[in-house]
Structures are given as structure tokens and as C-alpha cells.
């Protein structure tokens, strides 16, 4: 109805698409200035801003479904002859991403109003959330890769600010810095990639890049290097294999942040980047294989680590890395729609899982170790049900969203990728189902193992103790890596019951649960792959692979197998919980310490750099500076030495003068003819 009205005015909603990022920016500015005054009410401003953006993006999507890409560009800077432009663009992919980002952000805003209500810096929190939403939406709307890069780094900044929100915790500060630095490595790769692109193509706009790639103005090796450099950026941001170490540590931030940033939106930016530059990747097969294998490797690798972890948020973090690996695997095996479809569905159910975990943590007074939880099914009905839906979705059970998107990925891996990739995908699917339900059963079934909730010895955060901890431990990049603390109170004490949280926290869970169920249908085969048609219209990304029916049954079977194994181990106890860990303790240890990668990076990169810098500083002080001070002291010493000869005896001076005179006479005599 409203869609029709706007049509007559002839001004499409897409023209106002630039308003979508501006609303959160306005909330950011308002809260920055008047935040302290508004205290509690800041949440309403945040929610209002996001609601407007969401509404607008829905309208934009509706209009975009029929119509075509709308771009509006203005001159940003002149570099020599070619002009660099800035502006916004609404393509199919952008429209979809707009919906995903604004919806999840809105839901997280509502959730965090309740979750963060007793934190005195809530206005700063909502300001940063507004800034993050602005930069993420800006990234999605970018018409050229430079503007994408600008918002790409702004998103990195917001993740730095939000992970380090509780800055007084040393681990949070270290995690924030680590997150920014490691994504920065990826960003530099992306920067060099886009600079090379600009030098070769002459402009940053996607259109010109696509045409340049088609008319292969760029040489094959150049395309591969640029593609790999851009992929490095994606690896950094979406926490793929070498650069994934920052995501588990980023869990130090508040849970709504993890839900919004480290589950749904920011980490998906890497996948979005590959999606946007897909023609470039398609043009070089080596890049595609590298992408596929990195994705597969990361998926499997992260899944193994999620198996053994005991912190509820870290398990979800590893699961995110694994699911992102899936998406990148899909993109690597020419499954453009599969990857992006999974991105959308994953955003919903992963946000759901994180918010569910958030409400669980909120109920058990900020403790995150799943060994202290259990039996919450009875106490927290809504959270448990929605969490179950989320787990089923991620495991890929039939009607839910995860099934459709994962099946698409398996199809594209089977058809375009080789058997080994498909095998890894299947194993990972199985492991995903297993660890998700391990988490579910340990938290929600059985009896509550957490002690008395408001137990005095409980680990309340006191700053002074934390400061001493950092002084003693080696301060620096690796602060906060000690083994997760095991909570002291493990014995049975009459605890007070964890209760279900207020409506404001459970409503978002319900919304996301509904989405986790229905989101899959938009690309369901029997409805004619609507999403595929929408996304690939006008883009030549090749024919999208679709799996046969048996593949669907295979994926469900694998999921059910995973769930039943978890059920057997953690509910019925047919198999002892530490059955696997006792069988292969060393592997268990390896997984627990995330393959000792943190320590390896520390030893290989961080410490040598510090050693070299200290050496250079010493060298700088002694040699470069030393030479100068040497010259200085040399002159003053020689001055003193000369001074000793002036002993005040007039007659010595007289004698010296006579000899001097004679030398002069002699010289004059010797050369008397020379100068003529």
C-alpha cells in the first residue's frame, strides 16, 4: 500500500537509501553529546533510530525487488587526472544485507536495553552501537571499493571500542587491541589490493572493475594477486584460518556486542566483500581454490576447537568461525548464492544463539562456564525453546533455515569442488550438530550445577586485583591468556533459582527464532529459488549448483547422527562424558588450547618484533647517537689538550712567534717566484 503511494511521486525509496546509515549516525551523535543526561532513556533513542532504518530498508528492498540498481555518486577527490567519487548504491545484494544488518541491529538494541541496564556507561554503549550500525550500513551501501574500505576500517574501530567496552578489565583491553591489530593485517592486504586495482583500472567503482576484468585489461597473475590480497582482507575480518585468533578473545565484550558484531554483521563483511568482488575471483581459478580450501580448513579446524571448549560464548565464537568457513567454502566453489544465502540465515540463528547465551549468562549472574549450568529447561522456558530452535537450525534439521542454506553449500561443494572438500564439509556438519547439542544439553538439561548465585566468593570484578594480575603477569600483547579460571564454588549449596528474564530480552529471541524457521523458505527449491533469482539478476556469476534430493537426506542424516551422539553422551550417559578426552588426551589438550596458535603467534611474531625493536633502540642510542656525542666530546677534549700548552710563560710565546715568523719567511722565500 505505502509502496504504491511513493511510486506516483516518481521518487523511489531507493533515492533515500542514504538515510538508512544516517539514522544510527544521528543516534550516535545525540548520545555522544547528551548521553550522560538521558541515562536510562538512551536505549529508546537507539531503538528508534534502528527501527526507522529497518523500516526504510524494508521499503527499499520492496522497491528493489522489481527495479534495478540505483547509484548516486558525488566527487570526493581528484587524483591527478582521474576523479575519485563517493556515494551510495542499492544493488540486490545490498538490499538483502541492509535488511539483515538493520534487523539484527534492532533486535540487539532491544535486547541490550535490558542486558546493560545496570551498567553506568550505557549511554556510551548505545553510542558505539549506533556508530557501528552506521559504519556497517555504510559499508553495505558503498558503490566503490574505496568507500567500502573506509567503512570497513570504521567497523574495525567500532569492534575495538565495543570489545574494549569494559576497558578496566585488562583482558578486554588486550582483546580489543588484538582484534584491531589482526584485522588490521587483513586490512593492509585489502588496501594494497585496492591500490593495485586503482593503478590498473583507473577507478575504484565496481562497474569499471567488472568491465576491466571482463575485457581482461589486467594480466592473469595480477588478477590472482589482487584477488588473493582482497581475500586476505576477508580472512582478517571474517576470522578465517591464519587470522582467526582474535574472535574467541573478542568475546570479552558484552554479549549483545558479540551477537551483533561477532556473529551476524561484521564478520560477514568479509564474505560480503568476496560477494561484491565475485567477478574478480571468478576470473582466476587459483584464487577460487585458495578460497575454497581456506574456507573448508577453517570450518573443520574451528569445529574441532568448539568440541572441547567450556565457555558458552567461546563455543559460539568457534562455531561462527566454522560457519564463516562454510560460507567462504561455498563462495570458493562457485556457489555465489549458496554462500550469501547461508550468510543471511546464519546471521539470524547465530544472533539468536548468542542472545540466548546472553540471557542465560544474565540469569546466572555473568558466569559463562557451561559446567556450572544445567537444568535451565524448566526455569527459563522461552530462552530454552528459542535456543533449541537456533541449535536445530545451525545443525541443519529439515524445515529450519540452516538446512536449506547448508544443503546448498554441500551441493556447490559436491558439484564444483572436489570430493575431499565435500568430505570435510560433511564431517564439519556432523561436528557442528554434535557440539551445538553438547552445549544445549549441558546448559538446559539435567540439574542446575551452578552454586548459590549471589555467593560472596563469586568472581565479582575488582579492578585493583586485576591490575596486580597484569603487573605480575607479563604485560603486553599477550596479557589475559592464562588458562580459563575454574570457578571455586562447585559444591551443592541451596542456590536461588535462575529465573526467566524480562520480556524485553525474550521478545528478540522469539523474533529471531521465527526468522530462523522461515528464513530458509525464500530460497527453497520448491518455491523456485526466489533469492537466487533476485541476487543473480543482471550478474554473470555462472549457473548456481543445486543438489539432488539424496543430498538433502544425507545432510539431515548427518545432523541427526551428531545430535543423537550428543544426546547419548550428555543426557543419557550411555557414553561417559570424558570418553573421547580420556581416549586421546593429547588431542583433547590440543583442541582446548586452540592448537597453541596464540602462543605460536606470540613466539613467532610478537616477541621477535619486541626483541628487534629493543635491539634497534639500543643501537640507535649507542651507535647513531653515539657518533654524535663522540664528535662532541672529541672536539671538547682536543680543545682542553691544546689549552695545556699555554702555561703563561711570555717567553715561550715569544719563541713560538719567532719560529712561526721564520717558517713564514722560509715559505715566502721558497715560493717567492711561484705566484709571480
Amino acid at each position, binding site marked *: 500500500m505505502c509502496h504504491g503511494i511513493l511510486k506516483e511521486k516518481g521518487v523511489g525509496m531507493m533515492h533515500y537509501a542514504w538515510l538508512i546509515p544516517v539514522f544510527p549516525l544521528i543516534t550516535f551523535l545525540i548520545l555522544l553529546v547528551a548521553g550522560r543526561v538521558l541515562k536510562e532513556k538512551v536505549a529508546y533513542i537507539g531503538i528508534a533510530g534502528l527501527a526507522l532504518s529497518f523500516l526504510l530498508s524494508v521499503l527499499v528492498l520492496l522497491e528493489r525487488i522489481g527495479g534495478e540498481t540505483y547509484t548516486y555518486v558525488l566527487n570526493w577527490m581528484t587524483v591527478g587526472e582521474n576523479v575519485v567519487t563517493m556515494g551510495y548504491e542499492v544493488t540486490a545484494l545490498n538490499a538483502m544485507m541492509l535488511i539483515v544488518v538493520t534487523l539484527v541491529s534492532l533486535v540487539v538494541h532491544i535486547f541490550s536495553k535490558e542486558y546493560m541496564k545496570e551498567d553506568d556507561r550505557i549511554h556510551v554503549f548505545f553510542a558505539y552501537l549506533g556508530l557501528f550500525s552506521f559504519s556497517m550500513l555504510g559499508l553495505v551501501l558503498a558503490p566503490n571499493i574505496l568507500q567500502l574500505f573506509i567503512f570497513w576500517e570504521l567497523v574495525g574501530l567500532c569492534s575495538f571500542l565495543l570489545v574494549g567496552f569494559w576497558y578496566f578489565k585488562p583482558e578486554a583491553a588486550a582483546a580489543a587491541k588484538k582484534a584491531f591489530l589482526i584485522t588490521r593485517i587483513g586490512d593492509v592486504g585489502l588496501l594494497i589490493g585496492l591500490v593495485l586495482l586503482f593503478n590498473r583500472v583507473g577507478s575504484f567503482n565496481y562497474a569499471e572493475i567488472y568491465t576491466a576484468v571482463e575485457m581482461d585489461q589486467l594480466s592473469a597473475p595480477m588478477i590472482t594477486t589482487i584477488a588473493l590480497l582482497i581475500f586476505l582482507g576477508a580472512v582478517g575480518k571474517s576470522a578465517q584460518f591464519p587470522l582467526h585468533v582474535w574472535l574467541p578473545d573478542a568475546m570479552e565484550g558484552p554479549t549483545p556486542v558479540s551477537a551483533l558484531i561477532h556473529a551476524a554483521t561484521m564478520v560477514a563483511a568479509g564474505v560480503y566483500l568476496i560477494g561484491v568482488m565475485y567477478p574478480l575471483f571468478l576470473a582466476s581459478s587459483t584464487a577460487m581454490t585458495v578460497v575454497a580450501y581456506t574456507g573448508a580448513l577453517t570450518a573443520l579446524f574451528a569445529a574441532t576447537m568448539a568440541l572441547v571448549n567450556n565457555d558458552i560464548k567461546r563455543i559460539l565464537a568457534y562455531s561462527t568461525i566454522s560457519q564463516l568457513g562454510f560460507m567462504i567454502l561455498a563462495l570458493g566453489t562457485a556457489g555465489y548464492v549458496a554462500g550469501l544465502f547461508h550468510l543471511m540465515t546464519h546471521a539470524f540463528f547465530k544472533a539468536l544463539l548468542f542472545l540466548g547465551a546472553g540471557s542465560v549468562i544474565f540469569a546466572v549472574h555473568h558466569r559463562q562456564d557451561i559446567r556450572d549450568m544445567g537444568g535451565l529447561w524448566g526455569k527459563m522456558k522461552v530462552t530454552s525453546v528459542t535456543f533449541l530452535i537456533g541449535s536445530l537450525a545451525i545443525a541443519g534439521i529439515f524445515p529450519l533455515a540452516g538446512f536449506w542454506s547448508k544443503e546448498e553449500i554441500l551441493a556447490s561443494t559436491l558439484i564444483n569442488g572436489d570430493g575431499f572438500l565435500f568430505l570435510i564439509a560433511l564431517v564439519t556438519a556432523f561436528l557442528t550438530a554434535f557440539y551445538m547439542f553438547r552445549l544445549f544439553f549441558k546448559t538446559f538439561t539435567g540439574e542446575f550445577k551452578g552454586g548459590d548465585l549471589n555467593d560472596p566468593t563469586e568472581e565479582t570484578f575488582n579492578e585493583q586485583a586485576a591490575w596486580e594480575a597484569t603487573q605480575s603477569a607479563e604485560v603486553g600483547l599477550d596479557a589475559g591468556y592464562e588458562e580459563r579460571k575454574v570457578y571455586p564454588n562447585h559444591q551443592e549449596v541451596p542456590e536461588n533459582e535462575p529465573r526467566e528474564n524480562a520480556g524485553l530480552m525474550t521478545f528478540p529471541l522469539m523474533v529471531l527464532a521465527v526468522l530462523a524457521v522461515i528464513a530458509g523458505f525464500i530460497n527453497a527449491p520448491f518455491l523456485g529459488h526466489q533469492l537466487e533469482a533476485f541476487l543473480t539478476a543482471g550478474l554473470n556469476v555462472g549457473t548456481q549448483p543445486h543438489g539432488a534430493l539424496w543430498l538433502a537426506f544425507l545432510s539431515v542424516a548427518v545432523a541427526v547422527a551428531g545430535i543423537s551422539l550428543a544426546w547419548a553422551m550428555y543426557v543419557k550417559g550411555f557414553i561417559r562424558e570424558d570418553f573421547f578426552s580420556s581416549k586421546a588426551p593429547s588431542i583433547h589438550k590440543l583442541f582446548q588450547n586452540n592448537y597453541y596458535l596464540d602462543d605460536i603467534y606470540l613466539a613467532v611474531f610478537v616477541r621477535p618484533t619486541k626483541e628487534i625493536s629493543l635491539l634497534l633502540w639500543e643501537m640507535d642510542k649507542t651507535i647513531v647517537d653515539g657518533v654524535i656525542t663522540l664528535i662532541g666530546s672529541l672536539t671538547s677534549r682536543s680543545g682542553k689538550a691544546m*689549552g695545556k700548552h*699555554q*702555561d*703563561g*710563560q*711570555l*717567553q715561550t710565546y*715569544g*719563541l713560538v712567534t*719567532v719560529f712561526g715568523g721564520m717558517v713564514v719567511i722560509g715559505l715566502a722565500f721558497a715560493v717567492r717566484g711561484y705566484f709571480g
Partner: protein
Amino acid sequence: MVSITLFLALAAILFCIGLYGVLTRRHLVIVLASIELMLNAVNINLVAFSAIGPFANITGQVFTLFVITVAAAEAAVALAILIALYRNRNSIDVLKHDLLRW
């Protein structure tokens, strides 16, 4: 007729003796005396040139007069300094007076 070179040679010899005296003798009075000697050597030259030099005219002698007056004044002041020096430092040995240094 005595040629001028002889006079110049004499003057040179006297001058060098005087110089030697200034440079090496320890007794201040002798040093001053040597200075007077050197001045005399100069006068001999002047007078020799004014008398039997290439363009003999009176200016040589006039200059000798001026040199003599200056020498006299210089001798007077020098001895006054000597006496003051002796009274303050009660020594006229050149080695003792080495304050004038850095």
C-alpha cells in the same frame, strides 16, 4: 767609504742579540735592556739609510728621533711596571709571572 751593507749587518746582529736576550734571560731588567738594544739596532738602520741609502734624505733621522722618544717613554713605563710587579709579587724572575693564561 763604508758601504751600507756593513751598517745593516751590524744592526741585524745587534737586533738578534737583543731578541735572544728577550727570549731567554730570566732577569726582567735584562729583558727590558734587550728591548732597548733591539730598538737601537732599528735606529742604526734608519740612520744608515738616511745617510748613505739610495735616496738619502733627512726623514730617516727624523724617524730615529721619534723612535728614541718612544723608546724612552716605553722604558720609563716598563720600569714602573717592573717596580710595581716587584712590590706585589716581590720577584723579578720571569718564570714566576705566569698569571696571564687561560
